[in-house]
């Protein structure tokens, strides 16, 4: 083999090497969507909607199959993902609360070990109370300084709990945390006057708000939520507590060490999913979510902000 041939081969090899990252990644087999929760919950619905939209709008050639891996409020799925490091055919749609839990509850595998791909929707948090119980959020916050006002919520070491801790810390309140088995039980307790305020996602109490039995006092978001029912509800930031920000943000992660080209592919795919009409009306609107999209890099920064700036409040509170 002559020298020149070698040189040409070398050039060709380099060129191919350079072209490598540009050569778009395409899944070569079925993509597993690992849901870290049982069938029927919010995360499961999110995953199934993504898979459904990809299929019905033909956004990808390979098929996306939803697999539920519940257990340990997400720890089981995280441990499983750690064994799949570098697998480019696995996605994990997740609620940010589970990423928070991985730190607050100190799981072996934590949120930052995963590869961030995209943020696809936001489920806001509201503070709700029975109509007539408090005039507005300020009155509730003042009353809570006595330490006698109870705050119903459904999980510890999660985003609900984070919202509670941030409120108590920055508004100087002493709300009493009361834990229930789910948001339905919180609503029962609120309606039955067993607790004073409760933390709800819009979909969890929109029926009561429309009927006027329960009043949304304030939201934990950065901006007011649009819509007739919500536009007059102030954010806690507006009321003077800019650090009290929390929501059940819906994120899609990949296993640790996912290839960059694959991340770019899925990021683009999920962007297209969130741009479809079906996603906007059938999923976001109907479930009273807020539209939101962040790419891989922005999701990484966003998660880092939550983990580094907000999660330490668990330790401060002695949790």
């Amino acid at each position: 083999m002559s020298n020149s041939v070698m040189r040409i081969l070398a050039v060709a090899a380099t060129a191919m090497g350079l072209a490598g990252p540009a050569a778009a990644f395409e899944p070569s087999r079925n993509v597993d969507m690992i849901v870290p929760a049982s069938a029927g919950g919010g995360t499961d619905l999110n995953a199934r909607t993504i898979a459904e939209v990809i299929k019905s709008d033909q956004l990808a050639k390979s098929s996306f199959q939803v697999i539920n891996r519940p257990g340990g409020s997400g720890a089981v799925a995280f441990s499983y993902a750690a064994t799949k490091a570098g697998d480019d055919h696995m996605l994990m749609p997740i609620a940010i609360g589970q990423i928070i839990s991985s730190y607050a509850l100190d799981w072996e595998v934590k949120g930052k070990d995963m590869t961030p791909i995209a943020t696809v929707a936001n489920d806001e948090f509201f503070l709700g109370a029975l109509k007539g119980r408090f005039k507005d959020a300020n009155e509730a916050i003042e009353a809570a300084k006595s330490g006698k006002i109870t705050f119903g919520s459904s999980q510890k070491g999660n985003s609900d709990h984070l919202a509670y801790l941030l409120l108590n810390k920055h508004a100087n309140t002493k709300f009493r945390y009361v834990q229930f088995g789910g948001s339905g039980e919180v609503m029962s307790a609120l309606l039955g006057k067993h607790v004073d305020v409760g933390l709800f996602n819009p979909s969890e109490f929109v029926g009561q708000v429309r009927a006027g039995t329960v009043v949304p006092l304030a939201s934990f978001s950065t901006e007011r939520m649009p819509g007739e029912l919500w536009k007059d509800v102030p954010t806690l930031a507006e009321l003077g507590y800019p650090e009290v920000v929390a929501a059940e943000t819906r994120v899609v992660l990949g296993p640790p060490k996912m290839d960059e080209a694959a991340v770019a592919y899925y990021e683009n795919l999920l962007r297209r999913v969130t741009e479809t009409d079906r996603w906007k009306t059938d999923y976001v609107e109907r479930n009273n979510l807020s539209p939101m999209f962040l790419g891989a890099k922005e999701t990484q920064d966003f998660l880092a902000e939550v983990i580094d700036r907000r999660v330490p409040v668990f330790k401060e509170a002695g949790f």
Partner: protein
Amino acid sequence: MTEILSLLGSGFAVALTPTNLMYATIGAAMGLIVGAMPGIGSLAGIALLLPLTFKLDPTGAIIMLAALYYANMYGGSFSAILLNIPGDSPAVMTAVDGYKLTRAGKAGKALFTAIVASMIGGTIGMVILTVMGPLLADVGLRFGPAEMAAVIVLAFTSIGWLLGESPAKGGLATALGLMLACVGVDLARGGSRFAFGLPDLMSGITFVPLVIGMFGFSQVMILMKDFRSQGQDRGLADVGRETLSIRRSVLSRQEFLRILPTAGKSGLLGTFVGVLPGAGATMAAFLCYVLEKRTGRDGARLGEGVYEGVAAPEAGNNAAAAGTFAPLLSLGIPGGGTTAVLLGGLMMWGLTPGPLLFSEQPEFCWGLIASMYVGNIICVFVAIAMIPFVTNILRVPVRIVAPVITAVCVVGAYSVDNTMFDVVVMLAAGLVGFFLTQYAYPTAPLLLAFVLAPILERSSSAAFEISGGSVSIFYESPIALGFLLVIAAICLAPPALKAARGLRRTKQPGE
């Protein structure tokens, strides 16, 4: 009342359209199948079917899903009675007497009892739902954490009646159930306890694999042991040469009259339990069984394989399934996991569950309620038609049926959460269950403690969180105080009566 009747009438007009009738039938058939398969409960069944219904109109869709939900309560009893494997957790208590009836060659009648009792219980639940749904939901709201804790303590007190011949053995089984229930989430801190660093144990031991192991897999081992010692290969039960026809399964007038009061009582209690926040059909079935054991005419024989033992839990769980619709429809509050998924469905179809649902969507609400009457009748016919087919399994020789049940146990345990860990749990539970049964330790108290303990822990800790650690919350609430007084009366009455009788007896000779 006339208004309710006319609204219900318009509901029947909706429910009896051919399309909606078809949806109810499809839902009922699927519910029976899903219910009969161990491991796949109504929750998973509805969650999987839900995405397929988005294109249907909401009324048709919920008619189908609701049918799947209550038909599930019928289906769960099939495998419980025939194979001692409860198809769904509310059928656990059905297996206790149901399987004993099967071994005694009365499988057909046991199944028929389950179906008829389910129908009676379900209908009672629906009548109550129709007449006083919103009122009932309001009663449910009065049960806060303190009141729920008192109810559960009452249920725990009643475990004593399930203990069987040896109270010591029953007590040990109860304690074992409590210990197993402690594994998993530490409610006070949100972290895990007794998980030994295993992620799979972090949210606790799953109920379904435990039940499948304790009942089903241990049964396989017992079958194999008997098979070896007897050395002859027979079917599960001595069904004789005759075919098990529907006619031979129909209860006699006398038998029917025996289960009628049982089913009625259980229907009332079950509906009420279904309305309570966080209770559910499994607890309803347990409590109805206990009630029958305590107050039934033949209560003492429950557990030996009597029809009342099948009728009580079956009527109870169907009534509870109807009861959970009261808070769901009138307040938009799900009573349990399955109704939470249905609630998600309502929103996907563009409806807003809440206090306004009845006034804004009367056609939808009354159509659903009416369809539940219709659906229950459909369930009865479909289920009865299945009796001769399913009872054929009893003819299959043990050497064939044992490996098949084993496979069903493994698949059932695996399919709950798609994890092999649950299969290990099932096998271990089977081994434990085998030895418990061999040494005459009752397994029902173990499972009852396992189901009740987490609800007790959750509600009592929430009660203390509300009161800031003071016990006053338990006696300041009239409902909680009432339950606690009943508990005191239950505990103190028998010894007091005994003492009084003793006194009289010692006096008599002196007179």
